[in-house]
């Protein structure tokens, strides 16, 4: 059946999203609304009628754009939950609007855009000061972004 199929792909860990009963979602968890990966910031459930199912109102923030999105769904329906991964990389360079990154295994990665706004400014400043920086990259549904950075722990 469909259900078994989706479970298999979710277990394989390669899928960008997996289904979850709307009523099982939680505040601060993730959900897909209007094809965007979001973090749930508020959730309210209606009282139930004759057939014993409720509606769930979700308020969520797009994890990449910060835009607020809302959804109203029957509690018994499945919603998609994005697989969200966080990885830390050492910052090697900021070049032409892209970050040059390296992971713990020494593999490099040059396809993540340098963040804009305040985060971008403070990252650039810290990098220009010659600090050794670790950048956290969040990834979901084929999209990636730098969301924070910190000074690398000194080993000496």
């Amino acid at each position, binding site marked *: *059946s*469909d*259900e078994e199929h989706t479970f298999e792909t979710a277990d394989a860990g390669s899928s960008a999203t997996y289904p979850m*009963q709307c*009523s099982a979602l939680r505040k601060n968890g993730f959900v897909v609304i209007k094809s965007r990966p979001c973090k749930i910031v508020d959730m*309210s459930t*209606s*009282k*139930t*009628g*004759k*057939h*014993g*199912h*409720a*509606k769930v*109102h979700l308020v969520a923030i797009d994890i990449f754009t910060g835009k607020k999105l809302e959804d*109203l769904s*029957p*509690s*018994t*329906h499945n919603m998609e939950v994005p697989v969200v991964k966080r990885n830390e990389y050492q910052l090697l360079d900021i070049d032409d609007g892209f970050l040059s990154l390296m992971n713990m295994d020494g593999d490099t990665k040059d396809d993540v855009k340098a963040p804009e706004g305040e985060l971008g400014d403070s990252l650039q400043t810290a990098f220009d000061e010659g600090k050794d920086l670790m950048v956290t990259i969040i990834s979901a549904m084929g999209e990636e972004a730098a969301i924070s950075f910190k000074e690398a722990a000194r080993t000496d």
Partner: protein
Amino acid sequence: STNFEKHFQENVDECTLEQLRDILVNKSGKTVLANRFRALFNLKTVAEEFATKPEEAKKAIEYIAESFVNDKSELLKHEVAYVLGQTKNLDAAPTLRHVMLDQNQEPMVRHEAAEALGALGDKDSLDDLNKAAKEDPHVAVRETCELAINRINWTHGGAKDKENLQQSLYSSIDPAPPLPLEKDATIPELQALLNDPKQPLFQRYRAMFRLRDIGTDEAILALATGFSAESSLFKHEIAYVFGQIGSPAAVPSLIEVLGRKEEAPMVRHEAAEALGAIASPEVVDVLKSYLNDEVDVVRESCIVALDMYDYENSNELEYAPTAN
């Protein structure tokens, strides 16, 4: 709608218990049926809170039960009995026992009162249930009593605590629990039990609710075979669980059942309300086509079902009464 109208939109959070009662009993004489149903379900949420707000819950039970006295709508009274059974509030039991045994109440209302006593798990009602199980002239009432007695015995006899049941997606208290997971029954096995007239009705219901909880298209097709059964009560419950599952896969069989000229009103009524709960686009024209049905409970169910369709497809969070 104008701002003036909007100002007078009643919201459940702003409605007092007395306002909800007045909407439910149609005190103004102008309240539309759909809104009376909405008020009923909002009173239910108060009646359930007997542990934290005993006085208000008691009042809510009294107000809900007022409709039994003189109301002309069999559908509304049956829904009132259903709601009382869902409150878990044993204050509702004496009224329900009275209604179940009152031959001036319609069979559908007596049936629902019996089911409600089973839902409450009220041991003190066993004598009256046994009496009605033998003496009620209507088979649907007698069958319901049999189920209710079984459910009460299952609840209090120790079986409930031993069994491993799948947690239901729905907040309803059902006439029978699903078959326990340790039975590990396949869909064909469940379908065979569902349709076996030699099995006790309670067991067939347990197969029904297990299939509901499986909820796949295959399970829905298995459940739909139950519409060929002889028992009206049994068929009406199939329609009810279809309304719970909410899947468009159940729509064709529900449309067929609603259209059966010789079918019992309680079955056609439940099919109509299930279509409203599924609320897929194709149900609107079907439900509208029965708004002049000669059977009262079918016609009224279509009104309520179309309102449920509106609610399900609206941006309203709550199924709360409105001003119109």
